[in-house]
C-alpha cells in the first residue's frame, strides 16, 4: 500500500493514508513536466495522468533512473478510469506536449504512453498533431524499468494487468475506510452503537474477503451475482453470531444487518466490474463481443500491445492477429480504438455492429450510447 511503502516521515504517511483511504475521489497532482533523477536531452519521456497516487507510484518505480515524466491532465483520476470515461484523451497529451516545455528539453521526439490509457488516448492522433512518435509502455508502473532496459519494448507478461495482494488490500482499504464509519454512524441512531458497530464490522470483513480472495473467486467467467450473494450471506451469518453473542439479536437489528451486507456488496460489485481492467463493466450489455475482420488485418498488432487481458495474439505465419482467449475479454475496446485498419469492432448476438468511429467517440462510456448509435 502506498502509505506502507512511502518514506516514514509523518507528513508523507498522513498524506498517503489520506490519499489511499479516499482514493475513490480524484486527487489532482500538478500537470506538466516532472524531472525524475537528473534527466538530460536524451532521457526518455513517459506520460501519465495527474492522479496523485499514480504520479507517486510512477516516481517510485523510477527511483534511481533519469527520466522525464509528462503529467497530462486526467482531471485527478487514475489513467484507466480517466481514459475509459473520456477524461484523459489524446487532446490532453497533445496539450501537455505543447504547454509543458518538453519540446525544449529533449532532442528525441519519442513518448511512452501507459498501456492502460489506450481506451481513450488515440496514439496516432498525437503523432499527427505533434510530430512526436508515441509508443505503448507496460500496464504497470513497476515494469517501466525493465521496459526501458529492453529498449522500449513490452514483454507479453508486462501487457497483462495484474492485481497482486498489496493492490487488492489497497482497494479494500479504499472501501473499508469510508464505508465502515459511514455505516456505523448511519445505523447507530437506528440500532444502537453496539449493533451498528457489528454491522459495519462484518461489512468491512466481507469487503476485505472479496478483495483478499479475488484470484480464487469465479468472477471472470460469470456476472458474479452468486459470488457477491455468497459473501453477503456469509457476512450476514457472522453478524448474526456476533449480535447473538452480545445479546443484541432482534428482528430489527437482523434486518439492518442484512440491508448493510446487501448494499455493501452491491457497491463493491459495481467497483469490481469496470473500475479495474480485470472484469467487464457492469453497465455493458451482456450480448456482444469483439469481432475481428481478418480480411482487414494487416498484422500491425497494435491491438496486441494494448490488450490488458492477453485476448489477442499475433499469428506469425499468417501475419495477422487472432483472438486467442475470447473468454478473457473485458470489452474495454482499447484494441478497437487503436487498430489502424478498423479491423475490430463490437458485434451483438443479433447481428448489429458498433463501428470503431462510434467507439472512439463514446469510449467505454456506454450509458446506452452505443445502442442508440446503432
Amino acid at each position, binding site marked *: 500500500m502506498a502509505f506502507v511503502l512511502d518514506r516514514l516521515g509523518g507528513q508523507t504517511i498522513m498524506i498517503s493514508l489520506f490519499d489511499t483511504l479516499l482514493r475513490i475521489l480524484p486527487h489532482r497532482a500538478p*500537470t*506538466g513536466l516532472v524531472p525524475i533523477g537528473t534527466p538530460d536531452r536524451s532521457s526518455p519521456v513517459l506520460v501519465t495522468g495527474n492522479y496523485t497516487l499514480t504520479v507517486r507510484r510512477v516516481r517510485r518505480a523510477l527511483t534511481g533512473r533519469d527520466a522525464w515524466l509528462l503529467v497530462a491532465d486526467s482531471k485527478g483520476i487514475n489513467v484507466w478510469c480517466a481514459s475509459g470515461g473520456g477524461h484523459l484523451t489524446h487532446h490532453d497529451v497533445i*496539450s501537455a506536449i505543447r504547454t509543458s516545455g518538453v519540446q525544449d528539453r529533449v532532442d528525441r521526439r519519442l513518448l511512452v504512453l501507459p498501456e492502460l490509457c489506450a481506451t481513450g488516448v488515440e496514439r496516432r492522433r498525437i503523432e499527427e498533431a505533434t510530430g512526436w512518435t508515441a509508443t505503448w509502455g507496460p500496464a504497470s508502473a513497476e515494469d517501466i524499468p525493465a521496459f526501458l532496459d529492453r529498449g522500449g519494448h513490452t514483454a507479453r507478461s508486462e501487457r497483462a494487468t495484474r492485481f497482486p495482494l498489496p493492490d487488492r488490500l489497497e482497494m479494500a482499504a479504499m472501501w473499508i475506510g469510508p464505508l465502515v464509519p459511514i455505516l456505523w454512524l448511519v445505523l447507530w441512531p437506528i440500532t444502537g452503537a453496539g449493533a451498528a458497530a457489528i454491522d459495519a464490522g462484518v461489512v468491512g470483513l466481507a469487503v476485505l474477503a472479496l478483495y483478499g480472495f479475488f484470484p480464487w473467486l469465479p468472477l471472470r467467467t460469470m456476472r458474479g451475482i452468486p459470488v457477491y450473494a455468497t459473501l453477503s450471506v456469509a457476512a450476514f451469518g457472522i453478524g448474526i453470531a456476533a449480535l447473538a453473542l452480545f445479546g443484541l439479536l432482534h428482528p430489527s437489528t437482523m434486518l439492518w444487518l442484512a440491508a448493510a451486507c446487501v448494499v455493501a456488496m452491491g457497491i463493491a460489485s459495481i467497483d469490481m466490474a469496470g473500475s479495474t481492467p480485470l472484469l467487464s463493466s457492469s453497465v455493458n450489455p451482456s450480448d456482444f463481443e469483439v469481432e475481428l475482420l481478418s480480411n482487414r488485418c494487416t498484422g500491425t498488432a497494435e491491438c496486441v500491445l494494448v490488450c490488458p487481458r492477453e485476448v489477442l495474439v499475433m499469428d506469425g505465419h499468417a501475419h495477422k492477429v487472432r483472438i486467442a482467449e475470447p473468454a478473457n475479454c473485458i470489452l474495454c475496446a482499447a484494441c478497437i480504438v487503436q487498430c489502424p485498419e478498423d479491423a475490430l469492432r463490437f458485434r451483438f448476438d443479433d447481428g448489429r455492429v458498433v463501428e470503431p468511429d462510434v467507439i472512439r467517440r463514446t469510449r467505454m462510456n456506454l450509458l446506452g450510447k452505443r445502442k442508440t448509435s446503432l
Partner: protein
Amino acid sequence: MTYAFMRRLESTPSRYDRGIELLSGGRIGSVYDRIAEMAARPGANVLDVGCGTGGVSIACEVLGAHVTGIDRDAGMLEIAAAKSNAVQWLEIDATEIEDHFGPESLDAVVSCLAFSEMSPQVQRYVLSTASSRLRPGGRLVIADEVEPDRVGQRVWYRVRRAPVMAVTWLLTQTGTRPVKDLARSIATAGFTQIETERPWPSFLIVSAVKPS
C-alpha cells in the same frame, strides 16, 4: 449560479442546455448574445474556443459571422451540429488551434465557460495562440465564472459553492474552479483596450483587442 454542476452536465451533453439555462437563472442566453454583439460582424471569421453545445457560436453566426466552434467533447459537438449546420464544428482541443488556423486569420476569438476548465499553463498558451491567430485589431471576448469582488459576496459564494462542489465531486469525480486574474492574464498576453462586464457578481465578460 452554480457552475460546479457543469461537469455533471458535460457528462450528459443532452442535458447541458437545459441544465445551464436553469443554473444561470435563465440568463445564459443573454450572455451568449452579449458575447456575439461584442465580437461578431457580418463576414467576420470568428473562432469559438470550447464551444460546447454551440450557444455562442450560433449567436455569432446569426449576426452574419463565419464561425468555427471547437470542442474536445464529441458528444457536445453532436448536439451543436444538430442545432446548426451553418457553423463549422471541429473536435479539437484549445491547444490544437495552431494546427487549423493560420497566423492573423481570425477577426475574433470568443470563449464562454471554457477557461475555468483549463490549467493556468493552458490558459496562457491559448491566449498566446489567440493573439498570434487574430489579425491586428481583432477582438478577444472571454466569459467565465469568477469569484465576486466584494468580500461579503465572495464569502457567500464560497459557502454556497462548497456543498455543491462536494456533491458534484462525488457524482462525477470532477469539479470546476473559478478563473483567477482573467483580465490581467489577457493584458499579460499583449491585448489592449480591456473592458470588463459583470452580468452578475460571479460571472465576468472580458473584451480586449489585439494591438495593431
